[in-house]
């Protein structure tokens, strides 16, 4: 089942007088339950692609479908709703809110979805237990290690049962060993719960842990191969 389909996506940034074409027509289809890595060097356009796939930005041209819904021309608020319902983000720098406990951070997407606070917190605790943070429910981000913070972020990305998890350099701020545990967590989620995961990375070791590698260069896909 196709969950995500990009057709000839282009993105042009205007920097004063000059125009920079960051994406020069990218087409990509990802099915339910896939575990994909998008790789490329710095400047290859992978961050731009990730922003478009994550509905954080809209393409200059081309179409983009999530669950067969064209989201390429949606308004800011419609995109916010799509992000809330269909996409779970995991960022390189975790991006947890410093003033909120682990539980409150994980519960936040549910609150923006209009769920009751009490129920949201119960669910958030369950999700934290699932990533082995049952002992750290009421800790604030600064009281947690990097690996723990990233696991909180993973729990937050999963809480609204999104169609895809979009992870942007999820191990970039972690040491190798901790990075491995996060990658193991992703593969486990993919295998056991059939969660669709896209990892944006420039590290080939990380990319090699997924099932499919999409390689970008100069704003175009130059390779797209299944490795498992």
């Amino acid at each position, binding site marked *: 089942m196709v969950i995500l389909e990009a057709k000839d996506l282009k993105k042009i940034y205007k920097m004063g007088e000059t125009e920079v074409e960051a994406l020069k027509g990218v087409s990509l289809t990802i099915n339910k339950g896939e575990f994909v890595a998008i790789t490329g060097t710095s400047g290859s356009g992978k961050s731009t692609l990730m922003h478009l796939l*994550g509905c*954080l930005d809209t393409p200059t041209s081309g179409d983009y479908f999530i669950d067969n819904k064209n989201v390429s021309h949606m308004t800011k608020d419609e995109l*916010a709703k799509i*992000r809330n319902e269909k996409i779970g983000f995991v960022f390189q720098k975790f*991006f947890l809110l410093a003033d909120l406990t682990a539980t409150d951070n994980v519960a936040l997407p549910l609150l*923006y979805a*209009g769920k009751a606070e009490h129920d949201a917190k119960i669910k958030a605790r369950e999700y934290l237990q699932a990533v082995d943070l049952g002992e750290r429910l009421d800790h604030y981000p600064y009281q947690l290690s990097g690996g723990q913070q990233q696991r909180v972020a993973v729990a*937050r990305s999963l809480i609204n049962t999104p169609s895809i998890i979009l992870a942007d350099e999820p191990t970039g701020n972690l040491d190798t060993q901790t990075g491995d545990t996060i990658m193991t967590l992703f593969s486990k989620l993919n295998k056991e719960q059939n969660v669709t995961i896209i990892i944006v990375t420039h590290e080939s070791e990380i990319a090699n842990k997924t099932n499919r590698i999409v390689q970008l260069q100069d704003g175009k896909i130059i390779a797209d191969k299944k490795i498992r």
Partner: protein
Amino acid sequence: MNSYQLLQTALRALNKHKLRSLLTTLGIIVGVVSIIAVMSIGEGAKYRVKKEIEGLGTNFIIVLGGTPKRLMAQRGGSGNLTLKEKDYQAILNECEYVAMASPGLQNSLKAVYEGKNWQCMVGGVNEKYLEIRKWDLVSGIFFDKHAIKSGKKVAVIGQTIKKELFGTVDPIDKTIRIKKVPFKIIGILGERGKTPDGRDEDDIIMVPLKTMQKKLMGIKTQKYGAIIISAKEKDKMNQTSSEIKSILRQQHNLATNEDDDFTVFTQDDISQASDAASAVLNLLLLVIASISLIVGGIGIMNIMLVTVTERTKEIGIRMAIGATTSAILKQFVLEAVIICMLGGFCGIIGGITIAKIVGHALGWPIFISIKSILVSLASSIIIGLFFGFYPAKKASKLNVVEALIEQ
């Protein structure tokens, strides 16, 4: 997010920057303190003036000799001696709404008791005067009709005279001299306080009208500076006043194109004049309060703009996980409103405290009106909404990608 969750978010953010939040609210605090203090003290002053005006007497009307213009030039005073005995008689007999009246003669004279001197008002009135003024004696008696007719040398004194000339001695049956004429004190008046125009009512010696006229002022004919009147009905004060005017115009043979050569004040006229004066003062103070509220609001806007810039990343994260523009807008507007409301609460407490201190110092009653509290709260909320809106709008319009990559 529901409003309770937004409220929690806002409180958490404010709690994180306690000192900044407090400094931000200072302008609002000053504004609200002035609103509460002004309104409370103003109410107290109004109440006091109302009491003083009520204290003038029952359905009180005063006729003064001289045109309003002339009296104004003399700064009030006790009237020119242009009212005659027949004017008084006409008012008493022909006006259907007049219940009681007393002619009045007044002069500032020196009273002497056992070597002590005291410059004070000496008033010549008739036996009805105290009744018209609703003024009671604390001891002794007032002079009667007979005493007035025979021009007895008796006097009734106010509390200030008692204090200044007699101290702890009982003044009853003692003799004071005014212009070398000996007067026997037969009664002491109760304390009255100040008149609406600020004179000490207790600084007075009352003597029979005829005695005043002949012995103290040396006037041969019966001329008066004022006629003090009590109307029969409170609702008919205006009719009474116009009735008196037309009788006096007739008495004075004034042609239709001539102005009144006398001035009539009713209790209502006096209270209206004082209301108008206090309204102007209140307005002025409220303008000052509003200016400080607006300055406070600009301060809030300033700090909220800084806050939005500082928290760009937080806004980006919230948007990434699903916050809509309106959720962000609400969050920051609410923060501004809460800062203003906290300022409002502090201001209300401060205002009440200052009003009480001022009231205590001036000896005025202080009324903390619910109205002033509601006005303060409402204005701080409005200030928060108004000045918080622009920064919040700015926050909600942030581009999520740019907000997330912001360092």
